[in-house]
């Protein structure tokens, strides 16, 4: 029983961080119908930026999000404007390739600057755990989970109650109609992509506190993130959150009780089952005319 509860605690806390990572994917798909294969490397870039601020400037990595998130927002805005906007209307199917090219390019730059040595952000509280009876709750994972919830909540309020949020939702639902109503959909898409990068910066900081990373980490991440958003439903934030929690908890439980060799299997079995029964994912919307 102890092992079961401990696995739930660790898996659930990790799931929160995965949810934050996938929010950017959900945003870019929702507004641009673009599956952003660069989301994994954006998270890694966020890890490196926080790592730099911590090791060179001695700024706490969580505080450094106040700097790295706006910086990566600008990066995302620029990347979308330069690389994705030109192909949005004429060659939309190339956006998958384009985001992959961005991912490889950023990985290459990071490999040159930082080499491929493994890194981790080791703060004074990195190894602190709180004890509750037989259970250990790592402080870093709690901070990461709490921050993820705060950021996701902020994103939710932004999208639900702000003018910008209405523009994003309008663009997601029907871009042509949104344009007719005066929404600058190109600008909305660029801002949304920028926000996705900014959330990746925050997620990257948290990832770097908990795990070990190097530029190649993006390959581990992108597969998981895509699987999460597909399970939850492309374009659904609630779905992405549920998907992330499912992944985190499944992995932890199977690793502890069955075998780490099988830790990925249950999640993908659930994914397969959901897609057979609900091809649009748990909370995705079925498009009119879809089979």
């Amino acid at each position: 029983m102890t092992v079961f509860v401990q696995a739930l605690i660790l898996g659930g806390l990790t799931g929160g961080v995965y949810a934050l990572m996938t929010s950017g994917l959900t945003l870019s798909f929702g507004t641009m119908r673009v599956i952003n294969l660069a989301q994994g490397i954006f998270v890694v870039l966020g890890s490196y930026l926080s790592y730099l601020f911590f090791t060179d400037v001695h700024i706490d990595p969580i505080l450094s999000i106040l700097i790295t998130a706006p910086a990566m927002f600008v990066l995302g805005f620029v990347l979308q404007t330069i690389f994705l906007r030109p192909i949005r209307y004429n060659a939309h199917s190339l956006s998958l390739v384009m985001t992959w090219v961005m991912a490889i390019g950023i990985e290459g730059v990071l490999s040159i600057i930082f080499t491929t040595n493994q890194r981790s952000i080791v703060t004074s509280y990195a190894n602190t755990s709180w004890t509750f009876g037989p259970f250990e709750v790592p402080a870093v994972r709690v901070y990461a989970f709490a921050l993820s919830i705060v950021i996701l909540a902020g994103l939710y309020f932004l999208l639900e109650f702000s003018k910008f949020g209405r523009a994003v939702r309008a663009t997601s639902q029907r871009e042509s109609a949104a344009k007719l109503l005066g929404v600058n959909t190109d600008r909305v898409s660029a801002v949304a992509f920028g926000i996705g990068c900014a959330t990746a910066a925050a997620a990257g900081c948290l990832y770097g506190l908990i795990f070990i990373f190097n530029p190649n980490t993006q390959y581990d991440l992108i597969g998981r993130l895509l699987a999460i958003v597909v399970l939850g439903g492309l374009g659904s934030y609630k779905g992405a959150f549920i998907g992330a929690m499912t992944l985190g908890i499944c992995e932890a439980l199977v690793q502890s009780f069955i075998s780490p060799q099988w830790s990925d299997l249950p999640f993908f079995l659930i994914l397969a089952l959901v897609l057979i029964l609900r091809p649009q994912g748990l909370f995705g919307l079925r498009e009119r005319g879809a089979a």
Partner: protein
Amino acid sequence: MTRPTLKGRSFTRSSAVLLLSFSALAAYGGVVTSTASASSKPVVVGISLSLSGDFSSTGQAGKLGYELWASQVNAHGGLLGRKVKLIIASDASTPNQAQTNYENFITHDHVTLLAGPYSSLLNLPSAKLANRYHYLFVEGAGNGPAVFGACLPNLVFAGGPASATNAGLVWARYILSLPKSKRPKTAAYPDLNTSFSLGEADAIQKMFQRHGIKTVYHTVYPAETVDLSGVMESVKAADPQMVVSGTQDTDGFAQVKAALDLKFSPKYWFMTNGPENPVQFPATIGKQNVTGFFTTDIWTPTASNPGNPQFVSAYLKKFGGKATTINSTAAETYSVGQAIQFAVKKTHSLTNEKLIRVLHKDSFTTLASGTIHVNKCGEPHGNQNLEEWVNGKIQIVWPKAVSQHAPLIPKPAWKS
């Protein structure tokens, strides 16, 4: 019909003489040219290294070892008077790419010699490919049981005195040398699923089980596992006195991070790989937490291996940094170069078949292995040293004859 004139005949004869002369000159010139080309052509060595991917940190270190060896050889006239030129291709830590690289080296680049990549996972298929083309394959970082089990006639391991199966037994022998009251009674084995790590950990486990140390937990996890908290949770729940981790670098660091989160600190902790990395191990787990971790190796920057002070000095001169940050993989790949150099000097030849024969027949000395002799499968049968993190650095602690510091047991508790 006109008959050829005397003038015409002379012209024809002269032309023939001239033509023959030119041909002779051309032939002689060609020979000279060929000879000149052969002696001025470099000895090209093809090497596949993991410059990205899971083994990238050690791959990068391995590159420095090869480059240092090549520069030193060239400073002393090269091999048989010919400069050594390295062609290094990245394999992204994948066996398929490593094989492709070696195929290209042989069939496209027509290299003179080959040298091995990092890890048993890459060395075995690469050596098999090289064997098809009868190329010598000396490697310094792939001593898993599967590598020697293939018994390839062209393979020579020069990166240490022992195979993975035997390398970790120094830990087992050390623990069994302790008085019974100090020996751990239970052990857990969380192992990475690779030939090297499993081979070494399994051999240790078998020896401990024969001597009554009970296995309370054993698991094997795949290489893609990023979060090992579930595994370490199960290890902690089994409450072992000793942990023997069959690891490479990244997962080794991840095991320790998870153990820190769970406040799990066994009295004895041995890892097949991870602690020997002098920079990344303390950087990823916190330098205040490194004390008491054991691993095996034959090389440290201050070890008394023949040629070690010169190697360290040359390394720092070429690459900078501090002696304590030199990764042992650099010493291993340097040793590969030394083995090749010995064979070329002994045979006075660059013919791969001759080099294979001499390396399987004679003993040779390298930085990482000392003086060794390999069997027909390329496997050396010596012993590694036991190393431990003590006083902030990795040191040889056993056997006593070569130790730089006494072993520190039990492992101290974590420092927050």
